[in-house]
């Protein structure tokens, strides 16, 4: 009945001890592994045949590739295709783990902020390191917009830096909060069904409403699961664009 019980981290087995800390294989790690294995099966298994006219599963893999490739080309340009593996991995990992998380009794990896923050910081540091490596100190032009009078330039630079620093926060919180809120809502409405069902015949009649809502919310969550993976990937593209084309 506890709506946040589903987010508990359980230790499955002990792996070892690093620097005095116990490292456990948790249910979160198990579902991450599951998402990677499912992705591997989808991508390697379906393209193993490599027919000229794709079958159903092969065209699923091809459509996914085309979708992400077009996203990268439209937002970063042909130059950004070297980041295609990163964007594609992020997109497919989040998408598959969100979809797996919708199955009852499954664990939703992205409902923990440590996971989404790790992914967002990965993108954040990729942008900084690649931007500095590719453009050198010219990359800092990102914080100095052109055509601004000198007397308010320091203020603008401060604001631009703060805006840049807030990126990983909004990038990670968006995915995390959507998944967390969606799953809690789903659980609360499903809880109403069993509570009302315990009240007898009148309760059964009343339980129809939350049951219908639970079905509708599941459909909405399916949309949110895809949409949040898409938003995460497209923001990654927009941020990488800043690493490749700073300043202007």
């Amino acid at each position, binding site marked *: 009945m506890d709506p946040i019980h589903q987010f508990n981290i359980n230790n499955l087995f002990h792996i070892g001890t690093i620097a005095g800390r116990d490292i456990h294989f948790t249910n979160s790690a198990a579902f991450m592994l599951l998402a990677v294995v499912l992705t591997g099966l989808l991508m390697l298994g379906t393209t193993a045949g490599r027919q000229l006219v794709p079958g159903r599963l092969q065209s699923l893999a091809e459509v996914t590739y085309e979708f992400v490739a077009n996203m990268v080309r439209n937002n970063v340009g042909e130059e950004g295709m070297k980041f295609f593996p990163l964007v594609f991995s992020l997109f497919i990992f989040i998408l598959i783990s969100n979809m797996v998380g919708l199955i009852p009794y499954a664990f939703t990896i992205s409902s923990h902020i440590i996971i989404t923050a790790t992914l967002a910081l990965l993108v954040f540091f990729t942008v900084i390191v690649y931007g500095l490596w590719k453009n050198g100190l010219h990359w800092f032009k990102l914080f100095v917009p052109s055509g601004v009078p000198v007397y308010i330039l320091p203020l603008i630079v401060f*604001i631009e830096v703060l805006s840049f620093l807030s*990126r990983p926060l909004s990038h990670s919180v968006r995915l995390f909060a959507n998944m967390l809120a969606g799953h809690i809502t789903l659980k609360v409405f499903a809880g109403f069904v069993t509570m009302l069902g315990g009240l007898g015949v009148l309760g059964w009649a009343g339980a129809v409403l939350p049951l219908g809502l639970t079905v509708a919310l599941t459909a909405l969550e399916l949309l949110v699961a895809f*949409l949040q993976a898409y938003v995460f990937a497209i923001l990654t593209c927009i941020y990488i664009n800043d690493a490749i084309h700073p300043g202007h």
Partner: protein
Amino acid sequence: MSNARGNGDPGDRPADEAALSARLRHLGERLDHQRASRPPEPDSGARPAADSSAMARGFRLSSELVAGVLVGAVIGWLLDRWLGISPWGLIVFLLLGFVAGVLNVMRAAGVTTYGGPDRQG
């Protein structure tokens, strides 16, 4: 086209194999041509909307604002602790963070671009 497809049965003469590979090569050349004619750079002006549904859009904008304010507050608070200038760091950086949050929202909404030559400061 239909007779060409009819000739593609397995176990045909090697002449058909040659014809098939010629067609594949031709197709490859046309694909390369298509790739080359694609615009190499994205137009920096209009960004495609990052999200389609209204709820996702609303959530995106609000989280951009909150992120800006929070980052400003955290930086101000840390400066206060390290430099002992409480409460001025928090006051100044909270305001700056709010401005950065508004800037984030305007960029996410497409009012100003992420960075073009015609950026409106």
